[in-house]
């Protein structure tokens, strides 16, 4: 059976301004990113016939910066296919769905976007405003929030502490992920945190939920990313070389509730990675650059393990010292600064950066041997998705 991945290509990318508190609407940021990506793809706005976004409308304040309909109305698009969904294979799910829609002939050029206004949403009340604004909880968080654990920081901290206990993983090893992200962010003008970060700074930073400290957590920001996926037979006459989709991975195994994760290898990342590798002849050894979801440092570790760059439990030793994951290392990781220092673009920053690296447009942060294969992942805990991209 022909794989749908062969029928599509990424033809355009764009990003809005990214900042801690931009004071702009989600729609304003989305329009900026969308127009940049349309221009990058050499398309007319009228040529777009699809839109896809995570998570769509009406979720936590700040996490849904713009929905499909708002952008459709703002640009007066004539759409043949659209989707906004929070229940996907990681934040990249709508992108994967868009690729399938294009492969099926439902659309030719789909603009996929992700907009966050988290920093502005927190302006008056801090984190509590976002995670605890309502006191009667009726969704899946009812098993978590009443116990004073409303945040993913708590849920992932439990996973991290198990990793420490079972495999001897250390704070210094997690610190290597944070420091690598910062070192790369210092070469990226769009990153939000660009001051040097020493291991002493890392170890001295305040605890959020043991063993995760402030620098293990990504940075809430305002910003938007847009990526255009096109039919492959319409991708060669664009301004930039197309980036091809080699394989996607989705998985949902085990209970959704974060407190029921079935051991360290049970996170959905494992199932997503297995699916992806089954759909390609390539393997972990073929990957030249990795843009892996680091909403928390330890999630990047989990993805390194799930994707087979090291054995389960060996992630700490793999990243220790930072040499292996540096720009000139054997597996350059999160070359734009990740979400830890680049800002929480919620998965789409990873996809954007993979295209930048495959095009060779990374400037000072470009991996020297221009990558041919990039892996992208998004999500943590019970939901996850990943992609393999080539040029």
């Amino acid at each position, binding site marked *: 059976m022909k794989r749908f991945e062969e029928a599509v290509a990424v033809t355009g990318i764009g990003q809005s301004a990214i900042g801690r508190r931009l004071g702009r609407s989600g729609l304003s940021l989305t329009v900026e990113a969308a127009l940049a990506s349309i221009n990058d793809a050499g398309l007319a706005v009228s040529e777009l016939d699809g839109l896809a976004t995570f998570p769509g409308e009406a979720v936590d304040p700040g996490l849904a910066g713009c929905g499909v309909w708002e952008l459709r109305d703002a640009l007066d698009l004539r759409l043949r296919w659209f989707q906004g969904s929070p229940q996907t294979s990681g934040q990249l799910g709508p992108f994967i769905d868009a690729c399938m829609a294009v492969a099926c002939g439902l659309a030719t050029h789909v603009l996929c976007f992700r907009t966050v206004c988290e920093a502005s949403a927190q302006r008056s009340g801090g984190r509590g405003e976002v995670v605890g604004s309502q006191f009667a909880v009726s969704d899946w968080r009812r098993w978590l929030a009443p116990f004073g654990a409303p945040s993913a920081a708590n849920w992932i901290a439990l996973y991290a502490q198990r990793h420490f206990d079972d495999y001897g993983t250390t704070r210094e090893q997690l610190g290597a992920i944070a420091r690598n992200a910062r070192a790369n962010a210092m070469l990226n003008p769009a990153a939000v945190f660009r001051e040097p970060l020493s291991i002493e700074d890392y170890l001295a930073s305040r605890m959020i939920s*043991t063993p995760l400290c402030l620098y293990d957590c990504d940075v809430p920001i305002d910003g938007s990313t847009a990526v255009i996926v096109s039919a492959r037979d319409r991708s060669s006459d664009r301004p930039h070389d197309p980036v091809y989709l080699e394989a996607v991975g989705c998985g949902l195994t085990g209970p959704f*509730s*974060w407190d029921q994760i079935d051991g360290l290898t049970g996170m959905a990342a494992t199932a997503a990675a297995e699916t992806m590798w089954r759909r390609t002849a390539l393997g972990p050894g073929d990957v030249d650059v990795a843009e892996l979801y680091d909403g928390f440092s330890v999630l990047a570790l989990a993805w390194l393990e799930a994707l087979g760059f090291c054995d389960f439990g060996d992630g700490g030793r793999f990243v220790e010292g930072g040499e292996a994951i540096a720009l000139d290392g054997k597996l350059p990781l999160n070359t734009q600064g990740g979400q830890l220092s680049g800002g929480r673009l919620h998965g789409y920053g990873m996809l954007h950066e993979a295209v930048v690296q495959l095009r060779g447009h990374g400037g000072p942060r470009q991996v020297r041997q221009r990558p041919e294969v990039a892996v992208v992942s998004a999500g943590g805990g019970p939901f996850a998705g990943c992609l393999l991209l080539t040029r």
Partner: protein
Amino acid sequence: MTAIGGASERQASTHLCRAASRNPSSDDRAVIRPFPVPTDEERAFWTGGADGVLLIYRCATCGRWFHPPGPVCPACHSLEVAPRPVSGRATVWAVTVNHQQWFASLPPPYVVAIVELAEQPGLRMLTNVVGCEPEVVRSGMVVDVAFELLADDLWLPVFRPKVSRP
């Protein structure tokens, strides 16, 4: 069954409730943090604390315990499921000390843990470990259930380090 004394002892015996009483903005209501809106299936879990009992769903067909509650056994898909009392004994499976203040009425630090109930391997729930210094809680620690009044008739099942009794 591990039941602890009267309401006053329950209230006074934990970090979390002491912390609430220190908060000048808290009123006399028992609600000091988010509370669930239970479905019919979940009501037993959230109300059993009134009788000092932790109620967990069990399948009458295959004997499997499961949590969160639901209308069907996830193992054999039998519909013969109902809440049943458990011993209240558990082992800490994963632990974190939360240092970030998420709610005005809930000052850190406090322990968030996943515990594995004694009845069945893998039967886990997220909870708090109270009644001890947060730093001493470790994976493998044996704990017993206790209850805190959450709101109206809702009780929060928390756990305390096991103490030897005569």
